[in-house]
C-alpha cells in the first residue's frame, strides 16, 4: 500500500511540475451494467458532469464504457484496455468486490488512479466511495418503529441473491428488527430490485402471510409490492420506498387520497459524478483517504413534491455532486 502512495505522490509531483491542474488528464468510467433506470441515470449524470468538465478545460477527456454481460472477466479486460489506452484515472463501478482486484492492481502499478464507487473493490490501492448499505437497512426499521410503536409483522423484500449490496441491506434490516423486538419478519422474498419481479414474488407469498403492517424494501421494488397488496385486496401496509419516480408518484397519489405517509431512501445515481470529482482531486495531487462514505438520498413527506417535480418521468430521484461536494466528502473523511 505504501508503494502505491509513493507512486501516486510521484505522479502528483510530475503533474504538479507541469501545471497545478488536471487539464491534460484523461478519466475513464468502467461500468459493469446498464440495464436498469438507476444505471441509465448514473451514466447520464456522469456524462453531463464529464462533458462540462471537459468543456471547462478541467480534464482533457472523460469517457464512459459499459460491459455488455455484467461479467467480472469482461470488466477486467476492459480495465486492461483502459491501461493500454493511456487513461490517467479509472472511475469504477465493479461487477464484483474481489474478482477485479488483479486488474485493478495492474492499473495501479501502471500509475493509474482507480476510484471505485457503488460496486466497490477491496484491492487496497483503489479508493472506495461506499454507501453504508447496512445503515440504510437499519434506518428503514428505525423509521418503521417511530411510525408503528406497537410493532407487528413485517415483510422484507430483498434484492438480487448473491450480490453484496443485498446482503448488506438485509443485514441492516435484521439488525434493526433485533433492536426493535416488537417487529417480526414473517416473510422474505427476492424482488431483484425490479418492480415486476417483486410484484410476482409478493403475490405468491401473500396468501400464506398474516396481516402485514410494514414492508422494508431495497429500492426499485416498492411500487410492485404496492400493486401486489392491492391486487390481493389487502390494506396497503407502510412501505418504505426506494426513490424511483413511479414509487414517488404512487406515494403522492396515496397521500392525496388518504394521507399516506412514508419514507423513501436509496443511493443517488449521481454518486458517479462524486466519484469523477474525487478522481480529479486525486489527480490534482490532493491527499484523499482511501475510504470515503457517501450519504444516501432520503426523501421525507416534506420533500416529496419538490423531489417528484425534479425527477424525470420513469427515472430515479437524483443528486448531481459538484467539486465542492466532493471536497466536503473528502474533508469529512479526514
Amino acid at each position, binding site marked *: 500500500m505504501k508503494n502505491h502512495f509513493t507512486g501516486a505522490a510521484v505522479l502528483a509531483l510530475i503533474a504538479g511540475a507541469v501545471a497545478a491542474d488536471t487539464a491534460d488528464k484523461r478519466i475513464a468510467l468502467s461500468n459493469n451494467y446498464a440495464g436498469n433506470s438507476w444505471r441509465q441515470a448514473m451514466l447520464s449524470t456522469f456524462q453531463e458532469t464529464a462533458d462540462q468538465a471537459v468543456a471547462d478545460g478541467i480534464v482533457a477527456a472523460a469517457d464512459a464504457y459499459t460491459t455488455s454481460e455484467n461479467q467480472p472477466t469482461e470488466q477486467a479486460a476492459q480495465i486492461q484496455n483502459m491501461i493500454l489506452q493511456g487513461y490517467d484515472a479509472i472511475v469504477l463501478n465493479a461487477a464484483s468486490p474481489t474478482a477485479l482486484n488483479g486488474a485493478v492492481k495492474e492499473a495501479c502499478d501502471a500509475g493509474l488512479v482507480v476510484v471505485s464507487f457503488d460496486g466497490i473493490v477491496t484491492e487496497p490501492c483503489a479508493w472506495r466511495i461506499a454507501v453504508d448499505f447496512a445503515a440504510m437497512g437499519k434506518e428503514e426499521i428505525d423509521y418503521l418503529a417511530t411510525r408503528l410503536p406497537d410493532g407487528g409483522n413485517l415483510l422484507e423484500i430483498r434484492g438480487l441473491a448473491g450480490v453484496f449490496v443485498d446482503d448488506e441491506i438485509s443485514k441492516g434490516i435484521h439488525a434493526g428488527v433485533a433492536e426493535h423486538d416488537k417487529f417480526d419478519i414473517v416473510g422474505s422474498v427476492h424482488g*431483484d430490485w425490479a418492480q415486476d419481479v417483486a410484484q410476482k414474488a409478493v403475490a*405468491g407469498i401473500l396468501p400464506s*402471510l398474516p396481516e402485514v403492517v410494514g414492508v422494508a424494501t431495497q429500492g426499485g421494488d416498492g411500487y410492485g409490492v404496492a400493486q401486489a397488496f392491492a391486487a390481493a385486496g389487502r390494506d396497503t401496509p407502510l412501505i418504505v420506498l426506494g426513490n424511483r419516480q413511479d414509487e414517488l408518484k404512487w406515494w403522492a397519489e396515496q397521500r392525496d387520497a388518504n394521507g399516506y405517509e412514508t419514507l423513501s431512501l436509496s443511493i443517488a445515481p449521481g454518486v458517479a459524478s462524486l466519484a469523477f470529482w474525487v478522481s480529479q482531486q486525486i489527480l490534482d495531487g490532493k491527499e484523499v483517504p482511501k475510504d470515503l462514505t457517501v450519504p444516501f438520498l432520503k426523501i421525507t413527506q416534506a420533500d416529496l413534491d419538490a423531489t417528484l417535480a425534479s425527477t424525470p418521468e420513469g427515472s430515479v430521484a437524483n443528486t448531481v455532486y459538484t467539486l465542492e461536494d466532493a471536497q466536503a466528502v473528502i474533508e469529512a473523511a479526514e
Partner: protein
Amino acid sequence: MSLAGMTSKPWIWAWAAAALAFAATLVLTQGRGAGELAYAALSFGAFAAIVGLGQMLVITLGPGNVDLSIPATMTLAATLALKFMGSDPGTALPGLAIALAVGLGVGAANFALIFLLRLPPIIATLAASLIYQSLAIWSNRGLRIKPPTGLAEFATGRFLGLPNVAWVGLALALMVWVLLERSLWGRWLLASGQNLRAARLAGVPVEAVRAATYLAVAVFAALAGYLLASFSGGAALNMGAEYLLMSIAVVVIGGSSIAGGNSNVPGVWGAALFMFLVVSMLNSYGAAAGVRNVLTGTIIIAIVIAASSRRARI
C-alpha cells in the same frame, strides 16, 4: 387414468407437480388464501406460458433450435410500445400493433441470421439479442412510462373470475394446440423436427416452416412483453431477464421433447403454473435464496426424469 393413458400424456407430471406445490402451500396456511394463490398463479403463469408456447414451437424444430433473444424481444417490444402510447388513452391498439410489429421484425432478423448467414440459432439469437437490448436502451434510456389507464386496467383485470392475461394465454394455447394437432402446418413442423432431411425429401417446405416458427416465437415474446409492461406499470430494461430460462424450463417440464419433433401444449401451462407455485411455496416456508434455488433445480430434474422415463417405458 390407466398407466398407458398417463404414458401418452407427459403433461400430467407438470400439472401434478403444480397441484402438489399448491397443496403444500395451503397446508401451511391451513387452507386460507387458496383462491388468492390460484389467481396469482394464473396471472403470473400466463406470461411464462405465452413465451413458453413460442419457445416450444422453436424447440420442436429439432436439435439446436432455440430462441435466446426472448428477454430482449420482450423488453424492446414493451419499451417501444409504451413509449409510443405515452400513457395517452385510446392508444392501446396502435401500441399493440407496434409491439407485434417489433416481434415480426425481430423474428425476421433472427431467421435471416440463421438462414442467410447460416449461423447456429443459439449464436444468432444470443448475438442479436444484444442488439435488441441496446435498441431498447437507446430508444428510451430506461425511463419507465406508465401504460394508458384503460390498458393497465385490462391487464390487471378479470373476466368470469379469471385474470384477463390468463384468458389471453389460454386462447393462444388453444390456437397453438389446434395448429399443431389439426393443421397441415403443425404436421410439417413436427415432421421437420423429427427428421429434417426426411421431411425435405417428402416435400415439406422446411425453410418456410422454420421461418414461420421463428416469427411466431418473437411475436409471442413481443406480446408477452406488451402485456407484462401493461400489467406491472411500465416497461423496464431488465423486465425480460427471468424469462430466458423460464421459457426453456416450462417447455422441458411440460413434457415436450428437448430433441424436438414432439410438443406438448397443456404441459406448458402446467409447468408455467408450477414455476410460480414452487417459488411461492418455498418463499412461504421461508427457504433462503440458496436453498430455494437448489430445491427448484432438484424438483425440475425430478419432474423431467419422471416425464421422460414414463415415455421410455412404452
